[in-house]
Structures are given as C-alpha cells and as structure tokens.
C-alpha cells in the first residue's frame, strides 16, 4: 500500500510539473537576491554561503508543503486515506517520501550550482550536498506535520511557517555547523543522521494523528 500511495503521488506530481518546479525557482531567485543585497565580494559570500543555502532550502520546503494535504482534503481523498485499512502513518510516510523526492532531492541536486553561485569552492560541495541529503527529509517531515495540522484551517498556509520554523532550528544549526567545521566535523553528520532516524520514527505517527483530527472537523 505504501507503493500505491507513493505511485499515485509521483504520477500526480509528474502531471503537474508547475507545482514542484515553483519552489525550486523560488530557491534560485532568492539565491540571486543575496549577492545583490550583500555585495559581490567572493570572500563574504563564501563565508555566508552554508547558512544562506540552508535558510533558502528551508523556505522552499515550507512553501511547497501546503499542497501536500490541502488538495486531498478538499476533494475527499484525505478521508479515504484516514479510513484505509492500512496504517495511516504508513500512508503519511509515503506522501512525505514523494514530497521529498520532488522537493528535497532536487535541492540536493541543485546544490553544486548554488555553491558556485555563492563562490564556494568545489571542495565544499560534497559536504553541502550531504548535509542537504540528510537534512531535507527532516525538513519535509516537519513541514508535513505543519501541513497536516493546518490543512483544515482557513488561513492554514500562512500559519504553517509560524508553527514549524522553531522546530526546524536544530536542523539548521546542525547542518550549517556540519558544513562549516573542519575535517573533524563528521560527527555532526552523524548527529544529523541520528536526528533523521528519530524524526522518521516519531513524526509519521504525529502526522497521522493530525490528519485524523483534521478530518474530524
């Protein structure tokens, strides 16, 4: 059943490419704004780069998560997901997986270009990519929780960032430190991995609980 939900999400995403391309365009545009605002000095940009890339990735994920549950809520599919005979948390996990494949993974793939834009030399690219690879799934999971909580509310999409951003702060701190610290920074990647497995264990359950509440209103 996980495969079925995943399949469906991938099919829908493939048929409406605008929906998931939009946050990525947003990412690229904002990354262009930073040098325009800060000034083109390569040294300064390179120093700020990990944080800027990460904050922009965070915002892009937040932007893209609203459609995750809202469409299904409005056409009644969410009710059927909640009523399904399989566990709701597994269905939720499948949806978040699909969301990450179309949001987080493209960001990981774009990261070398973002590094180039920020004058970050190529030795940093693997670290940036790895931090995004481990961190964006956590962001997707947290953002999905926000989406599930706000899906039935009138101004839900405006409320989502307010609710979820404080919870994303540890990811931001860990990831930027993992990039910026010297070779002994591998420990930070392990911490990031630990946070990821922790989130994978608990957050789908919370998302499932929120969906059940959303559907009962």
């Amino acid at each position, binding site marked *: 059943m996980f495969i079925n*939900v995943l399949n*469906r999400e991938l099919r829908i995403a493939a*048929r409406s490419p605008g929906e998931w391309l939009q946050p990525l365009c947003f990412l690229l545009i904002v990354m262009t704004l930073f040098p325009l605002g800060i000034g083109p000095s390569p040294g300064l940009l390179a120093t700020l780069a990990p944080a800027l890339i990460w904050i922009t990735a965070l915002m892009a994920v937040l932007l893209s998560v609203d459609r995750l549950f809202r469409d299904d809520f409005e056409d009644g599919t969410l*009710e*059927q997901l909640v*009523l399904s*005979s399989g566990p709701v948390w597994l269905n939720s996990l499948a949806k978040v997986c699909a969301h990450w494949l179309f949001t987080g993974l493209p960001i990981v793939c774009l990261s070398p270009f973002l590094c180039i834009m920020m004058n970050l030399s190529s030795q940093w690219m693997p670290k940036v990519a790895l931090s995004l690879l481990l961190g964006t799934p956590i962001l997707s999971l947290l953002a999905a929780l926000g989406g599930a909580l706000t899906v039935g509310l009138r101004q839900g999409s405006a409320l989502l960032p307010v609710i979820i951003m404080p919870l994303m702060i540890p990811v931001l701190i860990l990831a930027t430190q993992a990039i910026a610290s010297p070779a002994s920074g591998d420990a930070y990647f392990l911490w990031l991995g630990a946070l990821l497995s922790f989130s994978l264990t608990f957050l789908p359950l919370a998302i499932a609980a929120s969906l059940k509440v959303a559907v009962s209103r």
Partner: protein
Amino acid sequence: MIDSPLILCHVRNLACERNQRTLFSGLSFRLEQGQILHLKGPNGSGKTTLLRILAGLFIDYDGQIEWQQDHHLIYAGHQYAVQGQLTPLENLSFILSLQGIAVARDEIYRALADFGLEDTRFSLCRELSEGQRKRVTLCRLSLSKRPIWLLDEPYSALDEAGAALLSGICEQHLLSGGGLVMTSHQAVPITQPIDTLELQPCL
C-alpha cells in the same frame, strides 16, 4: 428478503454535542443485512455527523457502537475523492487499494462501462463533469466488496439515468446481504424495506 438477517451494527445510547448544542442523545438502533437505514431531517439536524460517527471519522461522542466485523465499511461523503490529475482507472484502483481490495483492470473498465463512462477511459478526471465524477464514485461502490455502505446525499448531482443506476446497485447490494445507511432529503427510490430515522434539531 433474507431469512434471519445478521445484525451488522448495533448502536446504543449514542449522544453527541457540537458547538455546545446537543445534536442527539440516547439514540439506539440496529442495522441488519438487507436493510436500508434512511436518515432524514432538516439541515443541521446532525445527519452527516451521525454518518461520520458511524464511519469512524468523528470521535467526540458518547455511547457504544458494535460492529459485526472489522474493515467492513465504505464511506462516500459529499466529496467524491476523485483526484483531477488522474484518470478514472487510476483513481479507482488507488481508492480500492486503500481498502485492501485489488481489482483487475478489466473489471474496472467493465464497471466504468456499466456507468456510462467508457468514453472517459483516457481522460483526466478534471475534464469530466460533476455528474460524471459522481458516477466514478458509484463505480467504486459497486467494485468494493464491503458489506456496509454509508452514503451522504448519494442522489445529488445525478441525472435520471444516474439515479436509476444508483438504485440498481443499491438493490443488488442489499439482496446480497449488505446493509446501507444513507442521508437524503427526498424519498429513497429503492424497492427494498426501508427504515427511517428522523432527526429533529434539539433546541
């Protein structure tokens, strides 16, 4: 008529409050095989809430609901659960798979044809009219093999032909030992014994 029908569902002393208003209290009834329970009442009397309580979507109630078996119901509410970016085939096979039912593609095509939708095989559901999308939901009902159907205003958005199809599958379902609970403003045009439960808004 079925001899000695099985009781599919037994409800005792159901009470529910919403927005500090009592919707109903002390409600008790049974749903038997081959029986239709028709929920009647003016707007706001709690018909949809009662249906959603039976479906398991709404959980703030007092009282007991006993079901004869698990994974037995199918709920079709006001929304059709039809995703615009998918074809009818994809929609149906997905929703049925959510209920653990795997249906062969040919069977789905046959059901679509029965409901007059054979031309829409390759269209995306957002290109269908509302009545056609409703018929896709009806296909889902006929393809699922579950004994209890909970339908919220099933006859809305259907033309005469569609209504006749709906009555047809409902009768078939009842004759094969299923139970049906539906809300409807109008009289139910099905030639099977109907039990009516009328809900009045409490003041």
